[in-house]
């Protein structure tokens, strides 16, 4: 990953309503820098429904369509179809939803849009819980985490849902993960998504200092540590699910160090950290093995 110039274009203004250190806000700013003004956004219930600002204000200088929680993908599909029938084939339509609106309540509509391969970019900003409603667990919340519905006496026991595999099973043309700590990587992925027709899914790790009980200034660092500790691998799935590329060009860091700065993991005991570290390593190995396996299938190597 080589450093690049940050595009000067700003389609997101100051004066938005996000908390300090909000990863979701950084993610939007980066995405819009590469998408440009011919973009329409669809935003369901999520933090961004509020971050955008109250009527008649908007922090984003683009058309935004706010919609019901479970409908981001399909409203984007409808919007794209409506624009095309009006003769506008240029506008990129991007659904922009949180992990609750993607992994949980919005999964059905997203699956439908992906199966139809509707021409939309779907970005899930993943802050690993229902942050807008006050930090409740979602199926994206990692094992061990505290939330207001998984208190320390009964913290989350279930692993995070593997949304990437679910999307890969739809054979859509482009899937990627990203992290707010690697904006150029993210922007390159958004740019690539814009150039492809069909359903594109990007899931960006977007720390929520408020919900993770962490100092705001640790937002970017934790987004970096999640990647280098292999908790949140950066990957791309192309060729309709047949090709996987995992980013490995980093100095591995400690899972424990990543977790320990976050209050949501404070209650965990040493042996629980041990188990989580083992699980992270096993998932990483499996991912790398899958990358190799897919690369070894004849006819699929570029």
């Amino acid at each position, binding site marked *: 990953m080589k450093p690049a110039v940050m595009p000067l274009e700003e389609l997101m203004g100051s004066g938005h309503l996000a908390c300090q250190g909000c990863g979701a806000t950084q993610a939007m700013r980066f995405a819009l820098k590469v998408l440009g*003004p*011919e*973009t*329409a956004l*669809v935003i369901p219930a999520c933090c961004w*429904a*509020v971050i*955008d*600002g*109250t*009527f008649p*204000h*908007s922090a*984003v*200088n*683009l*058309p*935004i*369509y*706010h*919609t*019901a929680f*479970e*409908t981001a993908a*399909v*409203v*984007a*599909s*409808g*919007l*794209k*179809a*409506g*624009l*095309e*029938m*009006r003769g*506008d084939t240029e*506008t990129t339509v991007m659904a922009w939803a949180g992990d609750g609106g993607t992994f949980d309540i919005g999964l*059905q*509509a997203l*699956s*439908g849009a992906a*199966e*139809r391969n*509707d021409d939309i970019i779907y970005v899930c900003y993943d802050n690993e819980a229902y942050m807008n409603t006050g930090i409740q667990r979602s199926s994206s919340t990692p094992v061990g985490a505290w939330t207001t519905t998984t208190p320390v006496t009964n913290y989350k026991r279930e692993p995070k849902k593997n949304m990437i595999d679910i999307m890969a099973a739809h054979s859509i043309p482009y899937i990627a993960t990203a992290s707010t700590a690697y904006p150029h990587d993210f922007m390159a992925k958004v740019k690539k998504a814009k150039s492809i027709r069909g359903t594109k899914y990007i899931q960006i790790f977007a720390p929520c200092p408020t919900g993770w009980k962490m100092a705001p200034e640790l937002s970017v660092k934790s987004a970096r540590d999640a990647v280098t500790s292999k908790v949140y691998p950066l990957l791309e799935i192309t060729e309709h699910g047949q090709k996987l590329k995992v980013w490995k060009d980093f100095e591995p860091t400690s899972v424990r160090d990543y977790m320990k700065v976050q209050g949501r993991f404070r209650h965990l005991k040493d042996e629980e950290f041990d188990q989580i570290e083992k699980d992270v390593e096993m998932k990483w190995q499996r991912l790398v093995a899958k990358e190799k396996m897919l690369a070894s299938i004849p006819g699929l190597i570029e």
Partner: protein
Amino acid sequence: MKKVIMGNHSVSHGVMASEVKVISAYPITPQTHIVELLSEMCGNGDIDAKFIKVESEHSAMAACVGASAAGSRAFTATSSQGLLLMHEMLHWAVGARLPIVLANVNRAVGPPWSIWTDQNDSLSQRDVGWLQIYCESNQETQDTIPQAFKIAEELQMPVMIVLDAFFLSHTYEIVDIITKEEVRKFLPEYKPEIKIDTKDPHSFGNLGGPDVYMELRYMIQEAMEKGIDVIKRVDKEFEEVFGRGYGLIQPYRCDDAETILVTSGTVSSTTRAVIDQMRDEGIKIGSLKIRVFRPFPFEEVFEVLSKAKKVAVIDRNISFGNGGIFYQEIKSALYGRTDIPIVGYIAGLGGRDITPSVIREIADKAIGDDKPERYINWIGVKK
């Protein structure tokens, strides 16, 4: 061109002639023929529209919301459980002021599973803010589609057209099929001022505090009230082009009627046959079909019913804990302005036949009972 077609296909022909641009739907009996024929029409180029084959009715309405927000004419069709699943997005279409048209084939709600007609599906959506028009024949059903788009686009409000399962949806009748070319003389191209447009970016539907919400709801009610005149005018404009008009309500032999039976949907035609028979016997009776249910035509209904001595309302629906829903509406239209007894009759739920003899039974009861003890009466319930 006249053809013998089923009720569902008359909807499809209305949609084709209205040059709808985006269709999104999910299969459900007894609606499915509507979208099957539309798929075929899209496939063979009879209609230049995108058909989004969604994974649920909730998504069908959500896709229509997106398409309509983009400025394209959007349509969907559903029934029963499907309409109920759409409920949240029905509200969304109203709040967002989107002129979507939906055809709902009235089907009873489960459990037990039922595919047969009654009105509880559409009437349980009474308060969401959709205009509702109940149709009686295949011709009326077809003609109401372009009317609905014209009304919807002028008011910036969604319109639901409603037809009875099987009694209309699967019944074949002669229909004078309208064409795009003819409809263009009546329904102009949809060119909304407000739409999703990157050249004029706005945020739609973002957080609106207590300082703005109420005004937006006031404007929806204002549009509904304006709707009465708009529907009347649009119906007249339709009549000028096609020679057929339907009105808000349809009184039948009401002028000197002492008793009036209030109906909706296909029961209206059967009722007219009974009225003729009773008139032959010298009984002063008439009927009133309510075609437009939302906005409710209070004045028009009052004008007809206030001349009668007794009003009997036939409801193919029930609001549990209260009574027939049309009955309640008729009562509220006459309240405080007349002392005419209004009696409600619940009949035909879950597709049970409302035959001429059932209607005759209701009419005889209504005429014979001067001081009815019960204002909600069940017809034909087995002991």
